[in-house]
């Protein structure tokens, strides 16, 4: 009997202790703690989009107010209305679409050449130390040579056709991409490799089936980032020597002081970049559902 009593009393702890009941009510209870300002707090999607839109709108307003203020000659800072009118005119003209197509093709070809070399070389540099020693210091060195400074040499080597433009994009993105890919591969936790080894995987199986697979989402993200630079270098190349393309057109407009048209092209470059960036992100999330891409 006595043991059961003891057990009962030991189990009876539902009553809150006195000290707890006597505590003053917690005034902050129920209030969100710092809310959206908590460090690394995630935002509801709708709020995120609204804030992003607010950023664009404030930039637009700043531009509008600047143009209205009269401090600048409207030739240099045209009002949004003038730019919008110009845009409508340009969109109906085939030149704009040709320019987009030309620049787009240059970016695609240059960037594909770059990725085709950078991904395998980066993969091996991140996997095997001898490859890293061979490739990485050299790459770091070349990376610090300003790419536009290479234009004269590229023109001497490849003439003034399409090849020097592709090569400029290649040079501008390849060296960055190699390093980023190698870093992604190095970031793969060693135990993932060791598990494969203890299961009997050969080195080539580890590269193909573990390192390559595990690095894919990161490599894809590196492509997204590098691809942005490709657009910078295509414009640089076209500013120097070209007969068409977005960069060439901007230079031509500037010779005739057609600033509204320049603005249209600049905004267009931003829109293309942003759209491709979003496309890359979406594709990444879709292709690599297994990875927690929200952390990127």
């Amino acid at each position: 009997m006595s043991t059961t009593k003891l057990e009962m009393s030991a189990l009876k702890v539902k009553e809150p202790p006195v000290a707890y009941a006597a505590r003053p009510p917690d005034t902050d209870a129920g209030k969100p703690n710092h809310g959206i300002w908590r460090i690394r707090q995630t935002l509801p999607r709708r709020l995120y989009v609204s804030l992003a839109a607010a950023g664009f709108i404030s930039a637009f307003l700043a531009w509008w107010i600047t143009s209205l203020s009269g401090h600048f000659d409207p030739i240099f800072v045209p009002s949004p209305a003038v730019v919008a009118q110009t845009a409508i005119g340009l969109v109906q003209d085939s030149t704009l679409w040709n320019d987009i197509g030309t620049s787009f093709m240059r970016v695609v070809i240059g960037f594909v050449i770059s990725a085709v070399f950078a991904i395998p070389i980066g993969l091996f540099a991140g996997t095997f130390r001898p490859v890293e020693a061979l490739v990485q210091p050299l790459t770091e060195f070349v990376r610090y040579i300003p790419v536009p400074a290479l234009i004269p040499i590229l023109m001497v080597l490849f003439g003034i056709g399409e090849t020097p433009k592709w090569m400029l994009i290649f040079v501008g993105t390849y060296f960055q991409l190699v390093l980023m890919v190698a870093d992604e591969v190095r970031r793969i936790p060693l135990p993932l490799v060791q598990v494969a080894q203890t299961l009997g995987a050969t080195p080539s199986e580890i590269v193909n089936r573990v390192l390559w697979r595990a690095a894919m989402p990161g490599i894809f993200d590196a492509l997204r980032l590098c691809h942005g630079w490709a657009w910078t270098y295509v414009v640089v190349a076209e500013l120097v020597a070209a007969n068409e393309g977005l960069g060439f057109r901007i230079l031509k407009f500037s010779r005739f002081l057609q600033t509204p048209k320049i603005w249209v092209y600049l905004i267009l470059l931003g829109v293309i970049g942003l759209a491709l960036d979003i496309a890359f992100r979406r594709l990444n999330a879709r292709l690599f559902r297994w990875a927690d891409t929200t952390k990127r």
Partner: protein
Amino acid sequence: MITVHQLEKHYGDGAQRVQALTPTDFDVYSGEFVSLVGPSGCGKTTCLFMLAGLEQPSAGTIRHNGVTVHGPGKDRGMVFQNYTLYPWLNVRENIRFSQTLRVNRKERVVDDSVEYRIDALLHLMGLEDFADALPRQLSGGMQQRVAIARALLPKPGVLLMDEPFGALDAQTREEMQELLLLINRVERTTTVFVTHDVEEAIYLSNRVLVFSPRPGAIIADINIPFDADRTSDIKLEPAFISLKQSVKQLLHKNDQRNRLSRFEQLTQSSVGEAKVKSI
């Protein structure tokens, strides 16, 4: 059977030389469950990694069933402390991974037998409802279950486990310990288990090897007198508790002795230096 002979490991050279493991001998017999227990930095994990072939010994030899270990091989499966599932493969594909490798594709005779064994392991691990889940959808304990199943699938001669439950919460840890005992009874895989938890070591093992702090050495080889069909109830038995106490005391005493001798070394050398300076 594993035979470890004069196994030694040190890192660095000259003044930076760190002795991780002093020359060590031990055997692990077939079907045995042996735990290596000791404080952090005592060389027990280093020892396990050398058994796996993932680290090279500085001296000495390891033989598994008479064959000298030179590197990792499929005869020695391993479960790591952290989650090591391939995130792009679902649970079933992770467990099957070893069978898709060239070493196993060559000698595979009947394809269906592998799938049956995967099903059996899924069942044994309580994972039958999660066969199609991706690792990121699983809790830590579940992920470790998959990792164990993956290591067991090819029926390795020995299973090496490096603090596999170290990152789990206490309750999950106990569940996993019981699961491991169950697996042991079914699979009878020779197991070398590294942990710093004395209770866990005694509860799971046939034999416990106690390591001293750095430089690591085996200071005791204890036979655990409990049956294979033990349950967590034995943790409350006096025999269990006194065994646990004596291992803890052994570790503690050794730690103190080491510190004392190190202290004496340091004070003597400083006295020596002082004398030299005064001359």
